[in-house]
């Protein structure tokens, strides 16, 4: 939990990082949009603000608690053998909820494989990506219906899809008003080195595409600290491509909401792309296959724990008397219920039929695939009635 005013953000924190780590060295003092300090204090920013009702504040908190709890269930399910792998969002709840809740219904999301929180904000059943992680499908869903594209595994590839989709919005004449459409592309600090991400910046810029690049700089690409990706703060890159870049406190749900809302509105009104660097921290492992103790020390993790996105919001709600203990307990119970429900349904997910291997390879079919399907079925049929 947050300790109070004596533990303010800023230079004092550096001492808490202990051993000198490259992740810290990559980020000197820079202008970072913050509306809620790690201690839960509401602060102002000259350019950005939010104007929320008490209910909206509570809703943001609720979102974060629930997605954290669902995420923990994902990790637990993997540990219990129910999932092949899980990519945890722990620590990145504010970045995902704040940006996700900034989106209009008509906007389109291009996620990585870690955007479970953004998925939640699109009112999608949280079970949807579990087929991918359980290994019963490849994460397929009707992305146009949900306005949330499939998780993309290849790092940064979706940034180009997002940009192309945004170009298509312009061609459709759907930019220029409050009802205009915009696109948000998620990726991480590692992806910022990918050619595809940099090419998407070029395309978005020269075609003035209505796309927002939302980079969750969680300080690590598996084991590699962000200093292996960039010597200069990532948000500064946008300048060279000819559009604005903003660094926002990625553990501050109010700031990510404010910054993303502005960027999406700019895009939908035809004012082109924005690059948002949400400065955050991956509190957990890269995925359940990873062991972060091999490349970072506990002092660093503890320093970031003091900036936790959920606890700072809770402190704020308490101090402002927007919510009381009963409310928090109720949310915890609700989150628990969501997790138990999810757990039951994940475990009940059926394995696919073996013949599904051959489904949907082509829209128009293929004689080769159909021949192999027939051979496969004949092979299996040859065992019918025998012990095997």
């Amino acid at each position: 939990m947050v300790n109070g005013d004596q533990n303010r953000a800023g230079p004092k924190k550096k001492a808490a990082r202990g051993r000198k780590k490259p992740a810290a060295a990559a980020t000197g003092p820079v202008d970072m949009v913050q509306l809620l300090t790690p201690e839960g204090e509401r602060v102002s920013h000259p350019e950005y603000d939010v104007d929320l009702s008490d209910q909206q504040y509570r809703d943001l908190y609720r979102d974060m608690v629930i997605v954290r709890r669902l995420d923990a269930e994902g990790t637990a399910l993997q540990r219990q053998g129910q999932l092949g792998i899980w990519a945890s969002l722990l620590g990145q709840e504010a970045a995902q909820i704040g940006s996700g809740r900034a989106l209009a219904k008509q906007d389109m999301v291009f996620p990585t494989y870690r955007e479970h929180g953004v998925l939640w904000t699109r009112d999608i059943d949280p079970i949807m990506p579990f087929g991918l992680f359980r290994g019963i499908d490849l994460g397929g869903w009707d992305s146009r219906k949900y306005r949330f594209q499939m998780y993309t595994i290849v790092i940064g590839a979706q940034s180009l899809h997002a940009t192309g989709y945004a170009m298509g919005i312009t061609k459709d004449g759907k930019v220029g008003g409050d009802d205009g459409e915009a696109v948000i592309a998620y990726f991480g600090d590692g992806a910022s080195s990918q050619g595809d991400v940099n090419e998407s910046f070029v395309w978005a810029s020269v075609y003035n595409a209505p796309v927002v690049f939302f980079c969750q700089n969680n300080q690590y690409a598996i084991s590699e600290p962000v200093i292996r990706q960039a010597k200069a703060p990532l948000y500064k890159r946008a300048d060279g491509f000819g559009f604005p870049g903003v660094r926002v406190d990625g553990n501050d749900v109010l700031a990510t909401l404010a910054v993303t809302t502005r960027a999406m509105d700019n895009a939908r009104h035809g004012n082109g792309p924005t690059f948002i660097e949400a400065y955050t921290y991956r509190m957990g492992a890269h995925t359940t296959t990873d062991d972060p103790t091999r490349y970072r020390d506990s002092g660093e993790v503890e320093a970031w724990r003091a900036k936790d996105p959920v606890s700072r919001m809770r402190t704020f709600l308490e101090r402002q008397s927007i919510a009381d203990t009963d409310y928090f307990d109720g949310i915890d119970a609700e989150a628990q219920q969501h997790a138990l429900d999810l757990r039951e349904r994940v475990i009940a997910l059926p394995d696919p039929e073996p013949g599904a291997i051959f489904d949907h390879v082509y829209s128009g079919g293929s004689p080769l695939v159909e021949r192999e399907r027939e051979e496969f079925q004949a092979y299996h049929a040859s065992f019918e009635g025998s012990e095997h």
Partner: protein
Amino acid sequence: MSQTLRIGGAVGAGLRRAMEDDPKVILMGEDVGKLGGVFRVTDGLQKDFGEDRVIDTPLAESGILGTAIGLAIRGWRPVCEIQFNGFVYPAFDQIVCQLAKMHYRSQGTVPLPIVVRIPCGGGIGAVEHHSESPEAYFAHTAGLKVVSCSNSHDAYWMIQQAIASDDPVIFFEPLRRYQEKGEVDTSGDLSQAYPLFSTKVEREGDDATVVAWGSMVKVAHDAATAAAEEGRSLEVVNLRTLSPLDMEPVYASVRKTGRMVVVHEAPSNVGIGAEIAARVTQDCFYSLESPVLRVTGYDTPYPAARLEEEYLPDLDRVLDAVDRTFGY
């Protein structure tokens, strides 16, 4: 209605007709707009259809394919031009990991009707990376369809059929034949055209089958003409579709002739000729009088221009292989 068109011009005429028929068809690529493409295949299209539909892109092939995928998700039908065969590799991930797999991953909910046009093969005295035949990479990838046109009539119709396909199509154009003229019957519509994913026997013969595609089809015809003068009757099969392969016409031909030579510009090792040989061996084993032989580019990098005539299969090498099929 028939008109004489160069192969490059026939592709352009097909693109024009596809754009007239479907307002969602857009062209994307380097220099495809004002310049009309380095081979002038898209000449005049930007002038007539505007910059919104004929898009001069930044110079980055992965970007061309990646944004085309986004546009297709949005409902557009992009036709991407890769300027030269050897320039497609920066787009490889977007093609094999994204374009090829989206329909499968999405359980059929997200088709990607994208055409990737690639001038294929050598023979024009170019510097390196301009003369390659990369078709096997793409034919190896499930989810892609791969075709190769070899004459003006096919170029005109096949490009329109590829654009109409809801599956992604890698469309190879015979670079060294762009300037060759041929008759194009432009009457009728797509439903009446020879099916896209179908192989065609272009010349009937009894003694041996020569299978080729793209630029090599002309070599195969020339070889058949020369062989006829020597009293040997070759059947020429224009494969046209490389993925899926349309093997029945090939099998029928081999069952008749008992001998087969596959000709392609790409290197032999793990090439499409190997796949054809394996399938013919499996399905026509008792009809074969000799092993299937291949005449291909060598298993080297594409050589310097002054050596390419040695590298590329030609009439004499094809006839030599045909002779060898009679030696078993």
